[in-house]
């Protein structure tokens, strides 16, 4: 469908925020990402799915500047961030969370979020007020003074997201925020993500295994399999895409149940 013929503000809203061109990443011999290209528009909520070892997290790390890419180009809001260090990328407004985030040390919840806020301000008081604001939005204010590492995983993930939001980013990369959470916690996380996306107007890209979550909240889903992008479209089409099904269920199953899916 073409977006042509719409208003200027619309245009501004819909121009690409993140563009990835032919990104390829090798680890020594093995190919983690091969020739991946996609672009994400402002205020989109994109899901990135794929079977284990498909190279989703590697892709994130390349975008966030944790790994140097082997070849390809990454543009974020007009800047070429291919060669930038991770903290430089973060300062440009591309925040991310980690798949396994083990909090250690003695920092409290509020302090953790303040670290994020300190990226934009030097003043402690400003950072503090901002952090408190965020905690209110995330319904974390009653946890404020607890040591993070002593809280349950769910809260830790919430705080991690909150800290990332504290850097007030244009875009947020969420890596398996729902992994290892129970349904009700997943509900909360989902609410949080949607809050970030709709109320805070932050573009979100998330890796997720919990399908109902992805399918429910994503505007668009990108599917990786063994390092390659095999599909890209809205949830409904993805769900029916034979490649995707193959990727998830395997060749044989698809052959046996041919016909059931069309």
């Amino acid at each position, binding site marked *: 469908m073409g977006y042509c013929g719409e208003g200027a503000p619309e245009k501004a809203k819909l121009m690409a925020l993140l563009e990835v061109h032919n990104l390829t990443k090798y680890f020594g011999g093995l190919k983690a990402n091969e020739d991946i290209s996609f672009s994400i528009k402002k205020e989109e909520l994109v899901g990135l799915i794929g079977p284990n070892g498909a190279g989703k997290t590697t892709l994130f790390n390349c975008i966030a500047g944790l790994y140097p890419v082997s070849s390809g180009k990454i543009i974020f809001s007009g800047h070429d961030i291919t060669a930038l260090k991770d*903290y430089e990328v973060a300062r440009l407004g591309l925040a991310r969370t980690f798949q396994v985030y083990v909090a250690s040390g003695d920092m409290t919840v509020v*302090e953790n979020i303040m670290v994020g806020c300190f990226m934009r301000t030097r003043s402690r008081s400003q950072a503090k007020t901002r952090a408190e604001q965020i905690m209110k939005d995330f319904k974390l204010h009653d946890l404020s003074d607890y040591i993070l590492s002593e809280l349950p995983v769910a809260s830790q993930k919430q705080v991690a997201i909150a*800290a990332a939001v504290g850097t007030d980013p244009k875009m947020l990369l969420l890596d398996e925020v729902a992994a290892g959470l129970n349904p009700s916690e997943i509900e909360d996380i989902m609410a949080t993500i949607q809050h970030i996306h709709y109320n805070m107007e932050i573009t979100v890209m998330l890796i997720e295994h919990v399908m109902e979550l992805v399918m429910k909240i994503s505007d668009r889903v990108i599917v990786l399999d063994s390092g390659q992008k095999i599909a890209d479209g809205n949830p409904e089409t993805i769900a029916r895409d034979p490649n995707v099904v193959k990727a998830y269920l395997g060749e044989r199953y698809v052959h046996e149940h041919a016909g059931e899916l069309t």
Partner: protein
Amino acid sequence: MEALSSALDFSDFPRLDMIIAGVLGGLLVIFPATPHSAFAMATMIQFLMFSLYGMGWNTIGGYGGQVDLGKAQYVGIGAFTTAVLMVRWDVPFWVSMPIGVCFAVIWSFIIGYPLFRLKGHYFAIATIATSLVLKDIFEVWDFVGAACGIEISPIKYNPPDFLHLIFKEDIYYYYVILGFFFLGILYVNWFRKSRLGFQLRSIKDNEEVAKSLGINVHWAKIKTYAIATSFVSVVGSFHACYIKNIEPEDTMSLDISILIALMAMLGGAGSLWGPIIGAGVLIPLKSYLKEWLGARAGLIGIDLIVYGAIIMLVSAVEPRGIWGIVEKVRRRKRN
């Protein structure tokens, strides 16, 4: 003047702490008025000096989690700058001290840049190496008196000389270092709540995450290392005027580095009071054990044996030191 207010603001500590701290602070101020032996006085000055060393170490080693075992080289830089300037050109302490800090900071940048590419054990050992290298250089460098070191002749000045910090009675030295001590506490109190402080603590927690939050980890570490350095260097300058005869062998020896680190680690690295508690426990223990068992019973080294035992115990039971235990107990009380 946000910095000042935050430096003076201890409100995040429980009232009990503040009361105790206040009482102890008061005691420190009135101590010289009480009847005391010269030995007790010397011990107290040692205690204050090492608390300051510890505070300095604590910024990088405690809040930043970078175990630095090379602080003695900065004691040396501070001490020798002051001594050389005073002996050769009669420069007052209050001038030579900042100069010493400059030298120390410059050196800290020079070695800090490569040093912080290392982590953990590798970093710790490398700091020892650098410190020993500098010591060996000083021991053959005639300009700073080589291995004989430099003597600030007491008869060239007529005490009390506040400009050159040459006194006869220790009480003057006591109050000077006490002043530095309180300033140090305020500074660290500001630091731990400053942007850099927060960044450092999050680096200690998890460098990946810290980077993802836009922190330039390498640079943050180097900056803090310089801060720690200037602390140590200032006390080093004071040491020169207090001892009046400094040699690389006992000013820059590794034992100093170790002691500095131990003060903070034992008391509780990464907490404001940690280094002070550590020094408060170890220094009297050291000197009095030495005095009693060492000199009397001829059991030389017994003090350090007890030391070693304590250290091993702490590291096995509660790595976060005495303060760590306190906090643990508290938390158990709270929930």
